[in-house]
């Protein structure tokens, strides 16, 4: 029951009624200052914008509500999370303001209240409160030409494919958002490639949360392995030292496990490891790299 938004680029007339509806719904103020905002019209006070593209095309830009959102996976405190019915929402109560979500988002959607001393992240939340009341988002409701519509993701996918099939010359044969970054809840059909919606301008097929998942899963084993490795190395070194001391004579008086003598000067016995410095350091550093 994932809800979704489908935008048909060929139908959009660029009137920005959706932007207006959004601004009114969330009482957003004036445009943010130019110095913090870049090009695409999105800002802490604009959750959606209409990009003008060559060839008389208008492309609405908004949060894509990824099925596997990079922002939610990046957030250290879970201030961003995806609701089961689709919207990726934000909880300022939890937020630290670290802006890792902004760095992680493949589309560069989350925006920051740069001007505020108490800043938060602002982005489209697919009007999740309206969805709870059984209404549709403000933007889709406002569209005068039904270029952007709301519905179940599966229905919209079928609708999109049907439109492409009915008019194959008019569209690229691809539903944008069906597969990219693991699928998004905001879908597009368009006569041109929409790669410019990605930050960096290149289409991304990786599922972003999966990229850090491998490294994160390695954390507990590496933690324990490092402990075991260090413990083992200590044991080996300790034994070797003891054996050497035994060989040399009964002047070793240190109990095992208490290597440092409270800052006291150690016996000169340590010097009996010619060339040991480099050799002994390397295995420790190499260990985790292998």
């Amino acid at each position: 029951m994932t809800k979704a938004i489908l935008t048909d680029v060929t139908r959009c007339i660029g009137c920005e009624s959706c932007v207006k509806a959004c601004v009114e719904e969330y009482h957003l103020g004036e445009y943010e200052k130019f110095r913090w905002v870049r090009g695409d019209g999105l800002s802490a006070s604009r959750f959606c914008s209409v990009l003008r593209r060559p060839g008389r095309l208008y492309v609405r830009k908004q949060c894509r509500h990824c099925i596997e959102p990079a922002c939610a996976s990046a957030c250290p405190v879970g201030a961003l999370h995806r609701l089961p019915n689709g919207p990726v929402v934000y909880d300022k109560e939890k937020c630290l303001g670290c802006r890792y979500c902004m760095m992680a988002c493949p589309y560069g959607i989350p925006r920051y209240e740069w001007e505020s001393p108490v800043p938060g992240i602002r982005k489209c939340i697919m009007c999740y409160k309206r969805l709870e009341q059984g209404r549709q988002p403000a933007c889709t409701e406002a569209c005068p030409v039904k270029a952007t519509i709301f519905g179940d993701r599966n229905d919209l996918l079928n609708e999109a494919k049907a439109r492409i099939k009915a008019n194959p010359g008019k569209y690229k044969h691809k539903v944008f958002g069906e597969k990219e970054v693991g699928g998004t809840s905001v879908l597009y059909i368009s006569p041109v490639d929409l790669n410019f919606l990605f930050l960096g301008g290149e289409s991304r097929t990786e599922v972003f949360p999966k990229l850090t998942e491998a490294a994160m899963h390695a954390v507990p084993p590496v933690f324990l392995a490092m402990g075991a490795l260090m413990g083992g190395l200590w044991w080996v070194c300790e034994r070797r030292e003891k054996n050497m001391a035994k060989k040399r004579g009964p002047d070793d008086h240190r109990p095992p496990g208490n290597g440092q003598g409270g800052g006291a000067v150690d016996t000169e016995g340590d010097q009996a490891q010619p060339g040991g410095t480099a050799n002994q350091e390397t295995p420790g550093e190499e260990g985790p790299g292998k």
Partner: protein
Amino acid sequence: MTRINKFKAVMWFLVGFGAAVGIARFLSGLGATTNLTDLTPWGFWIGFDVMGGVALAAGGFVVAAVVYVFHLKEFKPISRAAVLTAFLGYVAVVGGLLFDLGLPWNIWHMIVYWNPGSPLFEVGWCVMLYTTVLALEFAPVVLEMANHPILGRIHGFLKRFTLPLVILGIMLSTLHQSSLGSLALIMPHRLPPLYYTPILPVLFFISAVGLGLMVVMVEASVTSYLYQREQETDLLAKLGKGASAVLWLYFVVRIGELAVSGELGLLWEGSFTSNLYIVELLLSTVVPALLFLHPRVSGSAGGLFSAAVIGVLGFVLNRTAVAGLAMQAGIGDHYFPSWMEFAVSFAIVAAAALAFMFLAERLKVWEKPALSPSDFSKAAPLLEPNGELWVPDPAAGIYMGRPARLSLAFVIGAALAFAISPSRAFESAEPVPSPARPALVSSAVMVIDGDRDGDFVQFEHNRHIAFMGDDASCGKCHHMRLPKSKAGPCADCHRDMDGQTDIFNHDEHASGLGGNKGCMTCHIDPYKPKTRAVAGRCFECHGDMVAKGSRVKLKNESFAVPAPSYRNAMHKMCITCHQEKAAKNPALKGLDQCANCHRVTPGASDPKHPDFVPAFKERYKAQDQETGHPI
């Protein structure tokens, strides 16, 4: 002693300056103090203070491992200083992070709200835990100075746990040093292929070990210079050899990874990224690794110090690159830290240095105390926080108060000055003005390109004339602002496409009235300042500015009338009328809908007007070439 005092004076200056900026940052927000933008949300504070800082604090766990795990007791003399440096380094990292976080008072949320899948969550926890471990590792050094029996018992207790603490510290360091690399794994769209690799965490860990050794060398050299201690040159040379081995390993893994993924060719691209990569790899790895092996370098204190400094700077550059510098080219944004970002960062480093010196002078960090008791009394009075400051006034020698208080007053004053100045004062970029382009008129239709994207709204001029009542109707829409003008171009006053402009063109009026002679025509009262407020009103001269019965109303209060942007003016002109008509006449329902005018221009597909739009486009193009505006 003067060496230390001079150094401390510089550090205190940096701390005070940074503190002022820091207060301003909390009062006026990140936007006013940093050059960060929506596309570059991480900047110098993350790249240098956090990523660089954590890497620089790696000396603690490396030296602890060398001394306690590998039993290389000869390095014991430098281990306490290394652990202290690491501890203060981490405190500095957390301090720096507090400036960068938008809501720093929520930093404890990481303890209660968990998201274990986030690398930042893991880094946060490890830094928290490791800072605690470092504090416990260093605590015995503090406690041994105390003579209280309970403290003595705690000291003994902690001492017994040194080895487990060291091992726990190594385990935690391994995790978060590598996880700092994992942070960038979720940014394949930002980080160029040269830098992006799945083994970033491994690279970060290996380099942290090498860097840790070099940082210890730098720290030992600097303190032995400042405190005129005996230089531990042969110990440092051994550290250098070790660092060299680690750096070569790092080099092989890094270049090997490039070779395996077939990206070696990207190195010779000559782009910003590839140059950055080469410079950074040379500085951080190749140059120090080679220098440490050279007998003349490893034999001299200066040589070791220089090589280590090169390596340290190289790795700071590396961390900064991964945290954002290398991303600049790909996302089309340009970021350079503001002076305020530099000020805060340097202040944090300076504060850490001062804290180090404070502790080093009072605790037994080295075998010999840093300062002899007599040195304490020799401190220059000006820099003593409780000394009194006298202005060298020959006449009176006015008492000025204590320098500490004065400094504090300066810091607070400067901070308030920053904070209350309007955020405009910090702005570096303004919107590019885009002059308006008047509508093009043909006999029957006018085309208006309100947003200059080459797409037109057609305005059927003739039909509107007929509808409004032929020749007599012009005034209903037009101002007729000049004598005998029926339709001056709207763009004359609505000069900017997207922004408000000033209706009044002072230069034109001044020259029209004969230069300086003409001032009095408008600024009638010669004894008042020649401002807008005292000037006459437009109407006093231009009685015909607005036609009778016009929809356009001109405010007559003063000259201070802003003209709305061309786009808004055009919009409002049409829409108000359409809305009225649609409300009155149910048959015209939909007249006020956007789609009523914002259609795909019929010319494109309409067989009746095949050349309509292209012809206008050509005319626009010619016009744009004249004015230099892109279509």
